[in-house]
């Protein structure tokens, strides 16, 4: 989650600098070769693993998306017949059931992600800013706030499943029995309500990460800025708008991108909350593709959907990085 921007800025800075370890030693030939080879040697384990577990599977996934890959071919998937762009056509034919369901799931995921990321950011920012000054119990509160982030996903989400139970859950007990807000106990894990159930769980689990990052960002703002602003008569609100938020710009750009990618790709939360088949209103794309691949046994179509998803994420991320880096350049001038 460290930043693209930080990484690229650094490498740019370093190209100007002379490679000092090399310069410090003499130009002996054997030593030089070793030193040129050394970075690659150091990278080798990481490279091999990235290749084996990320890049090769991705290539295979792309190949699979052009094949008619059903359960009959799974033992020996190389022999599955080619189907050209059929899997893609099925996936994006929005008038037919498969494409329509995919489009629906995509739109649900976009809406869900925007809401969840927005709320996580808002709560995280508010909490971090409120806790910027020291007060009694601040350390304890900070530790408490990190608990949802630290809990293993399945343990945390399964607790929410229990709370959302129709007959013996806390949510219905509070809303219906205690506050009388609903006529009868609602269903939270099926039907339209499940979107909100998923959102609540996602925000509960996700906001502490925003809190953590923004707290770290706040530590880097020099206190003199606030003192000077206070002397000039700026109120808290103005300090927030003129100092805090602009100083957090770079941090926020990275944070929001990371939250977006994590939320958009999240599989664990909906899977533990709903199981292999999510309700229509909360049918996030990861679970949808899982369902298309492993429940209906159509791996070719599932792969095509995955590739489309990846293309979408690439485009969005590229556009986001382009926009934010341009914004930063003009802001610097």
């Amino acid at each position, binding site marked *: 989650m460290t930043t693209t921007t930080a990484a690229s800025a650094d490498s740019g800075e*370093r190209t100007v600098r002379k490679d000092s370890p090399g310069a410090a030693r003499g130009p002996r030939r054997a030593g030089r070769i070793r030193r040129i080879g050394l970075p690659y040697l150091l990278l080798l384990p990481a490279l091999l693993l990235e290749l084996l577990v990320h890049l090769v599977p991705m290539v295979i996934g792309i190949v699979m998306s052009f094949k008619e890959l059903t359960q009959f071919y799974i033992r020996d998937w190389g022999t599955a017949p080619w189907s050209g762009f059929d899997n893609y056509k099925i996936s994006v034919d929005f008038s037919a059931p498969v494409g329509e369901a995919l489009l629906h799931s995509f739109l649900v995921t976009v809406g869900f992600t925007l809401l969840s990321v927005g709320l996580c950011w808002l709560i995280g920012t508010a909490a971090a800013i409120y806790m910027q000054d020291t007060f009694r119990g601040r350390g304890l509160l900070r530790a408490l706030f990190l608990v949802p982030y630290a809990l293993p*996903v399945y343990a945390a989400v399964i607790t929410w499943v229990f709370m959302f139970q129709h007959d013996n859950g806390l949510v219905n007990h509070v809303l219906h029995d205690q506050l009388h807000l609903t006529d009868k106990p609602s269903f939270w894990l099926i039907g339209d309500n499940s979107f909100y159930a998923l959102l609540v769980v996602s925000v509960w689990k996700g906001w502490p990460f925003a809190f953590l990052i923004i707290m770290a960002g706040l530590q880097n703002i020099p206190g003199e800025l606030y003192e000077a602003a206070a002397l000039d008569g700026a109120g*808290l609100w103005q300090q927030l708008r003129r100092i805090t938020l602009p100083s957090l710009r770079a941090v926020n750009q990275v944070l929001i991108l990371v939250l977006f990618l994590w939320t958009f*790709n999240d599989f664990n939360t909906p899977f533990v909350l709903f199981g292999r088949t999510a309700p229509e209103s909360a049918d996030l794309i990861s679970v949808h593709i899982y369902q298309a691949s492993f429940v209906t046994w159509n791996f070719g179509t599932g792969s095509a959907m995955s590739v489309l*998803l990846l293309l979408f994420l690439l485009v969005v991320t590229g556009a986001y990085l382009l926009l934010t880096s341009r914004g930063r350049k003009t802001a610097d001038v």
Partner: protein
Amino acid sequence: MAPPNSFLWSRRIFLTLLTGFVLVPVYVMVSSSLKPLADVSGKFRWIPSGLTIRPYIDIWSTVPLARYFVNSLIVAGAATVCSVVIAVFAAYAVSRYEFRGKRTFTVTVLSTQMFPGILFLLPLFLIYVNIGNATGIALFGSRGGLILTYLTFSLPFSIWMLIGYFDSVPRDLDEAALVDGCGPLGALFRVVVPAAIPGIVAVAVYAFMTAWGEVLFASVMTNDTTRTLAVGLQGYSTLNNVYWNQIMAASLVVSVPVVAGFLLLQRYLVAGLTAGAVK
């Protein structure tokens, strides 16, 4: 200068509400884990009708929780150690050397973070099965396969974060070590690594949590003997009954090691994030 009263009041209200939101599920987990089965099967009660530690005894026999626990420990522990070591080497190379392909490497590592896990679930499954058929190395269904998968999940994050952290260690320090006759690896382990301990701890915590909490690959790539906690916890729901008190007790037992470790080490995590992510 003391903040105005309106600020103090809005802070009190906001933080109280937020604490409630955060703590209610934790309270439910703890209180339900101490309730008799009849109590968790009926209407929810804030105050338990009777307290019992029975669920904490029964969780070990209803499902082989101890075995799942050991599996999770081995898988998450091994994935953490390997991923940290590999990330330290890679980040050192990127932070201290100029070489061809450096930018490609960082961009590639960076972009793997955006791949949805579902994209390589099936291909990886096929690769592991094929490697197994060709070489006899059982990756599919084994702990080894899961370790291999998990360590790459935390690797991109760990590498970026450590690059940032190593960059913040003054170059003069390891250059001095090189001048004093240390090899590059000597400089790494004697100077850079000790100076970057907070970052390394942060990365280790993150790697462990990622592996400990992963569900998707654990549910597809394990069998009865290698099952991890992520999948094992489903065993408390049977056709006849859902043992909610045991589920909550088991969830708590599963969570205590990671939450305790996280809270103990969180100051390092914040320090690591400050140096790595926030510049």
